[in-house]
């Protein structure tokens, strides 16, 4: 059994079918890059996996937790997958430490001292232990995104979903965030990332998924997908002829 099983997933927004039957199985420790044009459904697919979007048809399960549209099932699923967003979405009224502690205390009922210890450990992991008491608007974009990663990690997920996590960052800040992700991958974290960082995808990912018009158009190890694209759409997307 795979860690994440996505089977025949369809998703429509009104009459507009965005996902037209997606099948994808992810093994533990895999790092998957999802690439494709905007509008190809890659972000929607990611958002379906932890229930931010409800699926119209098909099924998704993560480590045996089925995606069903009720609070108990959603909670069980979301405890297994963390998510990191393009816009960081840190809580502006809490410090970096507070951001990392909040869900531990609220959702897992972790006592405050333990939550704080975990928060310090996670912030250290992303190289920001010295920013524990800083508020989000005192941090650079790259630092905010690293806090967001620490916040997700503190819930001890078995997989992380990354939705274009470097797209809102200045070029010089992209590297610091990718370095953290690279480290996570090396530690064996299962990662699904929608990304435009092709070189990163080539270096770090175990498989690359090319999405086109709501379908998985091509899939394979990065050396194959990038060096030897099969379909004209992927060739065009990569700019090779």
């Amino acid at each position, binding site marked *: 059994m795979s860690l994440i099983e996505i089977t025949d997933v369809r998703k429509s927004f009104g009459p507009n079918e965005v996902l037209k039957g997606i099948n994808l199985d992810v093994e533990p420790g895999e790092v998957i890059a999802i690439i494709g044009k905007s509008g190809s459904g890659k972000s929607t697919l990611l958002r379906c996996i932890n229930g931010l979007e409800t699926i119209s048809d098909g099924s998704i399960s993560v480590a045996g937790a089925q995606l069903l549209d009720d609070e108990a099932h959603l909670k069980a699923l979301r405890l297994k997958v963390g998510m990191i967003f393009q*816009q960081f979405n840190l*809580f502006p*009224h809490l*410090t970096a430490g507070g951001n990392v502690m909040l869900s531990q205390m609220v*959702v897992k009922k972790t006592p405050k001292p333990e939550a704080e210890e975990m928060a310090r450990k996670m912030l250290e992991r992303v190289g920001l232990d010295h920013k524990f008491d800083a508020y989000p608007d005192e941090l650079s974009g790259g630092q905010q995104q690293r806090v967001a990663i620490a916040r997700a990690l503190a819930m001890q997920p078995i997989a992380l979903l990354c939705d274009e996590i470097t797209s809102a960052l200045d070029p010089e800040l992209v590297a610091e965030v990718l370095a953290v992700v690279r480290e996570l991958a090396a530690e064996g974290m299962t990662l699904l990332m929608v990304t435009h960082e092709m070189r990163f995808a080539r270096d770090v990912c175990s498989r690359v998924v090319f999405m086109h018009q709501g379908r998985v158009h091509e899939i394979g190890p990065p050396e194959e997908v990038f060096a030897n694209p099969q379909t004209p759409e992927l060739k065009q997307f990569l700019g090779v002829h």
Partner: protein
Amino acid sequence: MNYQFEFGWLFEYYPQIVKGIAITIQLIAVGAVAGISLGIVCAWVRALGPAWAKPVVAAYVELIRNTPFLIQLFFIFFGLPSLGLQLSELQAANLAMVVNLGAYSSEIIRAGIQATPKGQFEAGSSLAMTPFEIFRHVVLVPSLQRIWPALSSQVVIVMLGSAVVSQIAAEDLTFAANFIQSRTFRAFEAYMVSTAVYLLLAILLRQVLGMVGWLIFPRRAAR
């Protein structure tokens, strides 16, 4: 114009004035705390709450916002006893102020909640928080911070509006002024003193609300 100002009565009547001030302060303290609490609950229902409760709260808010405060007060004090709910002047005045501020503040707070970026809800959800936990821990404080100046103004308006509770003989500051001018016939001076006290109270109240904001909102959370 040769009107002779005469403030000698102050020595005789200052206990009434002090009592009036105390009651006005008590009215706004209870009104603000309970009214804003009620407003938060109503704002939550209208912005994020269960569908069945929304029309109930909407009806309450529209009823209060579209009728005079004086009529609400009379209804509570003179009308409710017919249903067997007998309240003292002060209880009726307190209840009227809470009900009134509850309705107005709920609309202000709702605006703050609805201005919350969608990403905040999504971040909360992705961390496995329930909708109520997200409201309580993620949405509420920044929402209140967004609308705190508007809410503070509304509290001051309600404090000044509390003058009408003298009409049901609740012994607030206005009641004291009326009482003094009917005894001394020094209307100008009596209302001048009460005007000055209201002005002072309003300024003080703004300061207090600013301080409360400073305490409950972290230094830098403006967004």
